[in-house]
């Protein structure tokens, strides 16, 4: 029995230690929590009397009551550390009773033992509970019953009422086990507590370490990601730097290229500026040279005009006595014309030109001078028209007048005349007018269109051209008039009246035949008449005079017959017995003033003139025709065209005359 008890005690001890290792901390948690909250006391009780049991039962603290509610039977104690039957001395009766003691964790329980059977089983609720953590264990040696006695007493209370109990055992070995175990339990529980604290700390530490590790892993991940991103960033930065360097290089290259191109452009621009300035300078230089030529030629011209006055005109006029007189006044004016007037005109012009060139600048104008001051040049007309007569008179006087020839020789030897013949001087006014036009045109070429003088020069050229054309027209009219007068003097008229007006113009003259068998005659075509003469012993006999107003012409050799006839009038035709055709017009034609120009545009005349044959017919009336024979077909065509043109012009003038008469009648 004791051996079995001993063996059971060891088993329970090992089992309790193992159980405490695994469940201690949980229980401790619960217990500590309850203990800290309530601070209940352990109540000691004796189970000798039922009354005492009930009384103790009331006095238990609420904590123990709660424990009792939960552990109301021995079977609820699953893992006891140690259990056995011990003797307990009661408090009031002082007698030793058998009780079943059980240690589980840090609580000491003792139960009542079932008496009937010898099974030693605890029954009922615990009779008493001690919290071993708050108890002290004292060995008592003065007890009478046995030397093996120890006292369990709570340490918290100061009152004497705090429960305690005396416990003894049957054997010393068992006593020693219980007495040693109880403090060990306390130590074990303390160690257990420390272990729990350590475990908690360790758990907390592990938790922290886990969290830290997670954080670290997260940091590592972030760092790794950051590294990856940094790699990419480095690559991006590298690429960026490369691109930057490239852009710098390209920018540098572009700047160098731009600089080079700019230099080339500046060189080209400078060349262009140089060329432009050079052109401008050359133009201005040429312009100035032409202006200077205008001045120098005007100077020499005026000098020569004055020279002629000094050497020729004034000495000839100033001869006082009749014996020394070389030329008459009319002869002097016949040779020199209005020379002194020309001298005055050009002296004034020279002053103006000199003033222009004395104040010469780039902006100087010359054209305005010729616009405003050249009206006096119209007075060149008498000199120009008189020049031919002057030349002939000079030749006549030179050959006929010995004194005049000697005078001319003496004048020519004068150093001032540079040994030039007088005709060299007399020609100069003739050449001066076209010279002005020539110089102004050259000056216009050298003047920029933006220049103020360009407009003036254009107008000046027009002005000078008008003057020149006017002078030329006057000269032509005079030449023509002298020609007609010359012809009139040569003609011999018998029984035929031939009258010329101041408007008569010679158009054409040449040899003709009135029939194939007869000899050559001569014909004049004037602007209003057709005169046929016969040359006989160097005399010119007028044979026929045909008025063009009643005349028609026909060319029988052409492909189509073309007849040009004016309005026919009643003409009396007289045929003489000696084969002379005498024609006199009974209608006196009005003298139409010529328009001054003999030129008619022949392109508008569609005359179907044949190229075969050398004759055509003059239709004088419906009954009378005259055939004219010419040397060559070409000459025939020329005569035919001229006569047709003249007839057409007469018709036009007649219509205009009638129209003007009608207008006067209406007014």
């Amino acid at each position, binding site marked *: 029995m004791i051996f079995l008890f001993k063996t059971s005690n060891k088993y329970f001890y090992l089992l309790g230690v193992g159980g405490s290792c695994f469940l201690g901390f949980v229980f401790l948690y619960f217990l500590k929590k309850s203990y800290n909250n309530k601070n209940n006391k352990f109540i000691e009780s004796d189970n000798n009397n039922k009354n005492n049991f009930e009384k103790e039962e009331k006095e238990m603290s609420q904590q123990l009551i709660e424990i009792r509610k939960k552990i109301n039977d021995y079977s609820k104690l699953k893992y006891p550390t140690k259990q056995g039957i011990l003797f307990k001395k009661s408090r009031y009766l002082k007698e030793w009773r058998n009780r079943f003691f059980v240690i589980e964790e840090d609580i000491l329980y003792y139960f009542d033992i079932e008496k009937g059977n010898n099974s030693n089983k605890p029954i009922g609720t615990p009779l008493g509970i001690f919290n071993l953590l708050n108890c002290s264990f004292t060995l008592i040696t003065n007890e009478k019953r046995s030397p093996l006695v120890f006292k369990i007493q709570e340490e918290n209370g100061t009152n004497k009422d705090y429960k305690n109990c005396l416990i003894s055992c049957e054997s010393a070995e068992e006593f020693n086990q219980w007495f040693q175990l109880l403090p060990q339990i306390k130590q074990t529980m303390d160690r257990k507590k420390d272990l729990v604290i350590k475990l908690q700390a360790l758990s907390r530490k592990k938790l922290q370490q886990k969290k830290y590790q997670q954080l670290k892993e997260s940091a590592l991940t972030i760092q790794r990601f950051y590294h990856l991103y940094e790699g990419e960033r480095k690559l991006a930065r590298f690429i960026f730097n490369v691109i930057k360097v490239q852009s710098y290089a390209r920018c540098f290259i572009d700047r160098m290229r731009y600089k080079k191109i700019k230099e080339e452009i500046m060189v080209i621009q400078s060349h262009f500026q140089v060329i432009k300035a050079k052109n401008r300078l050359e133009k201005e230089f*040429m312009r100035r*040279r*032409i202006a200077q*030529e205008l001045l120098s*030629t005007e100077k*020499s*011209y005026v000098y020569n005009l004055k020279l002629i006055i000094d050497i020729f005109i004034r000495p000839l006029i100033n001869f006082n006595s009749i014996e020394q007189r070389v030329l008459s006044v009319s002869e002097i004016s016949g040779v020199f014309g209005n020379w002194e007037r020309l001298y005055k005109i050009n002296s004034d012009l020279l002053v103006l030109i000199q003033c222009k060139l004395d104040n010469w600048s780039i902006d100087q104008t010359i054209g305005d001078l010729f616009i405003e001051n050249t009206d006096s040049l119209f007075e060149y007309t008498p000199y120009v028209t008189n*020049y*031919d007569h002057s*030349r002939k008179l000079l030749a006549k006087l030179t050959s006929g007048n010995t004194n005049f020839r000697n005078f001319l020789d003496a004048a*020519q030897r004068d150093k001032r005349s*540079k*040994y*030039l*013949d007088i*005709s*060299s001087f007399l*020609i*100069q006014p*003739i*050449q001066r*007018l*076209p*010279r002005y*036009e*020539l110089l102004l045109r*050259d000056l216009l070429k050298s003047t920029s269109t933006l220049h103020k003088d360009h407009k003036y020069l254009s107008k000046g050229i027009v002005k000078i051209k008008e003057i*020149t054309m006017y002078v*030329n027209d006057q*000269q032509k009219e005079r030449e023509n008039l002298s020609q007609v007068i010359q012809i009139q003097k040569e003609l011999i008229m018998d029984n035929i009246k031939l009258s010329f007006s101041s408007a008569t113009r010679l158009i054409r003259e040449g040899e003709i035949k009135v029939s194939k068998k007869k000899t050559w005659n001569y014909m004049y075509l004037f602007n209003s008449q057709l005169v046929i003469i016969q040359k006989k012993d160097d005399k010119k006999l007028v044979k026929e005079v045909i008025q063009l107003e009643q005349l028609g012409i026909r060319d029988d050799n052409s492909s189509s017959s073309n007849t040009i006839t004016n309005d026919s009038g009643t003409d009396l035709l007289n045929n003489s017995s000696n084969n002379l055709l005498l024609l006199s017009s009974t209608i006196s034609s009005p003298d139409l003033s010529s328009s001054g120009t003999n030129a008619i545009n022949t392109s508008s005349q569609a005359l179907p003139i044949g190229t075969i044959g050398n004759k055509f017919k003059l239709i004088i009336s419906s009954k009378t025709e005259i055939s004219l024979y010419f040397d060559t077909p070409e000459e025939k065509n020329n005569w035919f065209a001229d006569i047709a043109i003249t007839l057409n012009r007469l018709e036009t003038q007649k219509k205009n005359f009638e129209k003007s008469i009608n207008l006067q009648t209406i007014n």
Partner: protein
Amino acid sequence: MQKSYIKLLVLGDSKTGKTTMMMTYSTGSFPTGYVPSHVDATSLDIEYNKQVCHVGFWDSSALAEFDNTRPSTYPNTNVIILCFSIDSPTSFENVSKKWIPEIRQYAPSIHTPIILLGTKCDLREDENTINLLKENNQMPPISYKQGLALSKEIKATMYLECSSLCNQGVNEIFKQVVRCHLYCKDGVLNDPTTTTSNTSKCIIQ
């Protein structure tokens, strides 16, 4: 001995070098810079075979504006120089087309000596001139034979060539002018002072 007066009339197309030739002879050098297109009549003394003659230079302009006044310069002319430019075939053609008819119409006499003068003879072998004429599809520069043939065609007294730029042949022109005036009668040059008078004779017809 009394000095005789020679009226010399210079004709020809524009820009053939008439004025330049006269200025070269007067000043002795080619004129640089601006050359006027027309100069007034001047007079120079030219000595030939110990005789001194006054030669009056009558320059004229070929422009249309002077067509009315140019006939006035023809009377009393002793010698006519008719110019064309060797590098200008147009001026060569105008010799027979324009100038000869005008001379025949206005000259004092049909026997007035005419000297046909080819100017700018230095341009005959000039590459630029030849290429320029070729580009314009014109005749090449006038050769000496062509000039000589034309002078015979127009019944000129003689044919000469000169270059004002090189001052080549310019002095010879005016010597020949004096010779023509002194020894040319009825269009026949008969100079007894030269040993080769027979070879240099220019007979019309």
